[in-house]
């Protein structure tokens, strides 16, 4: 055993030489490249092997986003697709898909599905919008938000309890939840003197703040400072963590790769703020990072930490991968599942609150059933598996951008909704095919799967 602790110490030459059990070529395809890479070259070779084996991670969705950008920029009238105004608009349109897809992650990673989140979130948003109306209840904005999200949390917990305690399929329970949510939403909207359309465009401060969630912007200078602080914080955290792991001989990516990762995050931050800080208004000034970006980023960051860095997140993956193993490890499956369905609905509540802000109020035209299908599509397009055990909140954000990009680009072309539905459907099929193929690829090396 060498006295310098390195992860290569795990392979003693004598043992490695006699080892006939490892099939290096077959196994290499399934290893995350950052796990085995000693250098940048290793990393890219590892990535290439994985892509060839169908285990491509977020690569297809990144390629898809680039393709959407190039195609629509080329064909859009006056090449407005990549203009600052349209890109910010695109993000605002995509926000609902992103947050709902992040919400759907909770169900999908468990190997379940939640069809109700569109209407359950819409109920929460309807409650919030109703409560801040100055002519009726006139609640403060924060109390109204708490009430709306609390409704979602409770609704999700009830669905989760039915699914786990009565062992009903999540498909059926949440389908019932979709119908019940639809009815409840219509019923809540009809309360008060608003003929079913309570709005956020009034003059009370509480209405204004909710309206600003989507349409408000941060001062350009503050945007730069905020971006700088976030990028520096995240960058230092990643750099510090990786270099500490390298020093103590744990599995860590090479320093150059960490630098590239941090550099990319900084680049994205600078580009986004630079785009947002251009004046986007046809008349007057409209510039700065919209609040909605910060809100989506905050939801993403919080749930990334929950999924990747907490016991609870680990248990979601374990149950999605092998429920029996999780049970034998002493994990409380019932509790983990109920909390997951609660958080799924809760996150959906945030998404529909942003949507209400986008619409400037709530209306009985909100299509919760269609939204949830887009949410599942966004998650799967982003790389979350429909078979459970695999997926990240980040996938939802990337997939949401793809769907928002298709929607926005088709709209610029003057197309109606028909081709947009068809194209989105085809993209979803492509994403599900990639998911299924990569699953087959990774299953070939395992003993227990057929």
């Amino acid at each position, binding site marked *: 055993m060498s006295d310098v602790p390195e992860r290569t110490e795990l392979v*003693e030459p004598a043992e*490695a030489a006699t080892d006939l059990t490892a099939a290096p070529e077959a196994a290499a395809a399934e290893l995350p490249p950052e796990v085995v890479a000693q250098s940048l070259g290793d990393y890219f070779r590892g990535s290439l092997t994985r892509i060839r084996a169908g285990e491509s991670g977020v690569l297809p969705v990144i390629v898809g986003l680039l393709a959407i950008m190039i195609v629509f920029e080329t064909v859009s009238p006056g090449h407005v697709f990549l203009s600052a105004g349209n890109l910010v608009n695109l993000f605002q349109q995509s926000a609902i898909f992103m947050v709902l897809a992040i919400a759907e992650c909770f169900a999908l990673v468990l190997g379940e599905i939640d069809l109700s989140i569109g209407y359950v979130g819409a109920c929460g948003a309807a409650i919030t919008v109703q409560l801040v109306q100055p002519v009726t209840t006139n609640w403060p904005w924060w109390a109204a938000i708490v009430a709306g999200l609390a409704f979602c949390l409770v609704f999700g917990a009830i669905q989760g309890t039915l699914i786990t305690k009565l062992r009903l399929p999540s498909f059926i329970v949440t389908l019932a939840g979709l119908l019940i949510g639809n009815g409840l939403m219509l019923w809540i909207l009809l309360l008060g003197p608003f003929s079913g359309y309570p709005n956020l465009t009034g003059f009370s401060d509480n209405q204004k703040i909710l309206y600003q969630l989507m349409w408000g912007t941060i001062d350009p200078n503050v945007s730069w400072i905020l971006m700088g602080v976030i990028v520096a914080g995240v960058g230092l955290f990643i750099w510090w963590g990786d270099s500490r792991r390298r020093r103590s001989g744990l599995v860590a990516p090479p320093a150059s790769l960490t630098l590239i990762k941090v550099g990319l995050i900084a680049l994205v931050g600078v580009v986004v703020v630079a785009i947002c800080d251009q004046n986007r208004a046809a008349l007057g000034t409209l510039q700065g990072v919209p609040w909605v970006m910060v809100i989506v980023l905050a939801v993403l960051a919080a749930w990334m930490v929950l999924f990747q860095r907490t016991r609870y997140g680990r248990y979601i*993956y374990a149950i999605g991968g092998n429920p029996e193993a*999780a049970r034998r490890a002493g994990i409380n499956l019932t509790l983990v599942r109920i909390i997951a369905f609660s958080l799924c609905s809760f996150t959906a509540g945030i998404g529909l609150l942003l949507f209400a802000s986008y619409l400037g109020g709530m209306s009985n035209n909100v299509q919760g059933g269609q939204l949830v299908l887009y949410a599942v599509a966004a998650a799967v397009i982003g790389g979350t598996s429909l078979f459970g055990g695999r997926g990240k909140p980040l996938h939802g954000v990337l997939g949401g951008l793809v769907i928002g990009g298709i929607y926005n680009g088709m709209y610029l072309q003057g197309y109606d909704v028909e081709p947009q539905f068809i194209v989105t459907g085809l993209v979803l099929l492509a994403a599900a095919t990639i998911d299924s193929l990569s699953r087959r690829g990774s299953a070939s090396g395992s*003993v227990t799967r057929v």
Partner: protein
Amino acid sequence: MAAAEASNSPAAEEPLLKVRGIDKHFGPVQALYHVDLDLPAGQVTALCGDNGAGKSVLTKCISGVISPDHGQVFFEGRPVHIRTTRDASRLGIETVYQDLALCDNLDIVQNMFLGRERTRSGLLDEDSMEREAAKTLATLRVTTVRSIRQPVASLSGGQRQSVAIAKAVLWNSKLVIMDEPTAALGVVQTKMVLDLIRRLRDRGLAVMVISHNLNDIFDVADRIVVLYLGRMVVHNRASSFDRQSVVEYMTTGDLGLSGVRRSRAN
């Protein structure tokens, strides 16, 4: 019969785990009749028996999955009640199931610590878990994996078995029970796992292996016990058996051959 065997037992001192007079029935079916079993530390005990002999039931009684109707279990000389798998873990009894109970989508470290993750201020302490897992794998000389951060889905059958065993050892366990550890493995991988079992024994652990494979049993076992229709028909040093006698005990519960000590329950 227990008294007769005690003097003949390979380990003169108190065994790590002592089972006395265990009965278990499921409805009208009597699965275990007054079973006695000794599992000494630092020895590999092979539990043999035909299908339906009660091997699994006996194992589950020890690992806390089911509780026996009657009988007593002594661990390190003290009487204990093992009601749940948590109770068993607390005593230092770990079971490696035939299906291994690993999550394919998690990596080796994550699987080894599943359900017992270490945290620091609420967040997972990955560094400390990875270090501990690497140390355990190194001491067991499980050296063929490329990285302990690779998902279990990418491991060979033998490597998976090794990870499952290392997971059991990680918790300072004193007794490791293995259900058919070599059933799904090829020749080389079987050798790898049998070597690993010997290393556990050399570290002073008590190991109980349930197996149908006589080659493996004679390769690795220090002691052999045979169940027949819920009764313990024989337990003795492995050297006092040959293949023929083990097969006869397993299939008939009795022995027609001479030269081997005979021992029958009840």
